[in-house]
């Protein structure tokens, strides 16, 4: 890993200033994705700005019709939160299955969303629930936030401060784990909301997380596990690799959607 200048600001405003002043500055949150990247020398930032000392970015609170989670809240904190378990149990369930215990103790929701790994878990919950990503500049709707693998609507140096999740009527998440990496080979988040059924899929799409319109239509007509399993999902824009073909992944989308409906609370 190349060396860099390290900053640990106490406020979001100071963090934005530090990023702005650096020639090639990067934010570090839990570091669970960034540090392996730096160690492989896939990136060589001049400065790292650690968000770890900014109290405003941490914590979970009930807000309006849902839950707001600070960007620096760890996966372990979301998994064990009674507020999350009460409002959106599927979200706590999802967080408790990210990576392993050690990763969950450091990794954060803000880091996961900014990174937008095509096999990460949180993007499916944010898109499935129609959440809103809040930054130091604006609010971004989930449908506009994810823009292809490892790509988001965030501007250079823009900082995620929190995510607001509206409470669904019911939601479920099922993940088929890729056993070596623990990421999702395919993960499906199903939410029955006032505005209709939303189904978001991670791990399968060539462009990262996406909404499975075929399954949404089937579940909109009949919210049942059988309806989800019966929905035909096109393999056209899905991934094929040594872990599974696009056709296999398409099949998993309907099967996992069915399981997510059966488990939905």
């Amino acid at each position: 890993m190349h060396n860099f200048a390290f900053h640990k600001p106490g406020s979001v405003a100071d963090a934005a200033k530090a990023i702005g002043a650096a020639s090639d500055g990067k934010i570090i949150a839990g570091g669970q994705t960034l540090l392996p990247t730096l160690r492989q020398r896939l990136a060589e930032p001049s400065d790292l700005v650690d968000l770890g000392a900014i109290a405003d970015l941490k914590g979970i609170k009930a807000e309006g019709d849902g839950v707001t989670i600070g960007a620096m809240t760890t996966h372990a904190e979301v998994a064990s939160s009674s507020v999350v378990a009460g409002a959106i149990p599927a979200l706590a369930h999802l967080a408790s299955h990210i990576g392993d215990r050690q990763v969950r103790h450091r990794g954060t929701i803000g880091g996961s969303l900014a990174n937008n790994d095509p096999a990460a878990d949180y993007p499916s919950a944010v898109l499935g629930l129609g959440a809103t990503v809040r930054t130091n500049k604006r609010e971004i709707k989930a449908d506009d936030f994810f823009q292809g693998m490892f790509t988001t609507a965030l501007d250079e140096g823009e900082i995620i401060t929190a995510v607001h999740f509206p409470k669904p009527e019911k939601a479920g998440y099922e993940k088929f784990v890729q056993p070596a990496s623990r990421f999702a080979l395919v993960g499906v988040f199903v939410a029955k909301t006032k505005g209709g059924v939303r189904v978001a899929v991670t791990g399968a799409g060539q462009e990262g997380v996406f909404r499975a319109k075929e399954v949404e239509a089937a579940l909109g007509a009949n919210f049942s596990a059988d309806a989800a399993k019966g929905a035909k999902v096109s393999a056209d824009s899905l991934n094929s690799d040594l872990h599974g073909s696009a056709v296999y992944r398409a099949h998993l989308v309907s099967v996992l959607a069915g399981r997510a409906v059966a488990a939905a609370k």
Partner: protein
Amino acid sequence: MPTVKMTVNGKAVSADVEARTLLVHLLRDKLALTGTHVGCDTAQCGACTVHVNGKAVKSCNVLAVQLDGAQVTTIEGLATGDTMHPMQEAFRNNHGLQCGFCTPGMVMSAIDLVQGKPPLSESEIRAGLEGNICRCTGYHNIVKSVKAGAEAMQAGKGR
């Protein structure tokens, strides 16, 4: 060079480190605490697991400078004098190790997993140790050790 201050195994430590220094390198190279092992260096294997503020983390995947002010416990900090921690004792009694390379990380993860919890089932222990890889034992005796260690910790024979 940045200075980091932390408490390691109950002792106050202050060190000048390059910003890029990983916690595991501070522990092993500067503090000579070589019980914490580096197995993969890619954040996969868990051999480098230590406790930071009481929680298991992979010390190869965190910068020392991120942990200014933290409480760190390594495998060297578990025993009380000559008396091993009940989880260490359980690994010895149940043949929970062969080459021993993964063992410090396994013990640190196991303590974090069972601490303050009602008894876990075998499958919960297996799932709870998913961040730690062992190339020797086939895990069977590790799971037995963790179960026994948890019981001994509950029985108040240790922490």
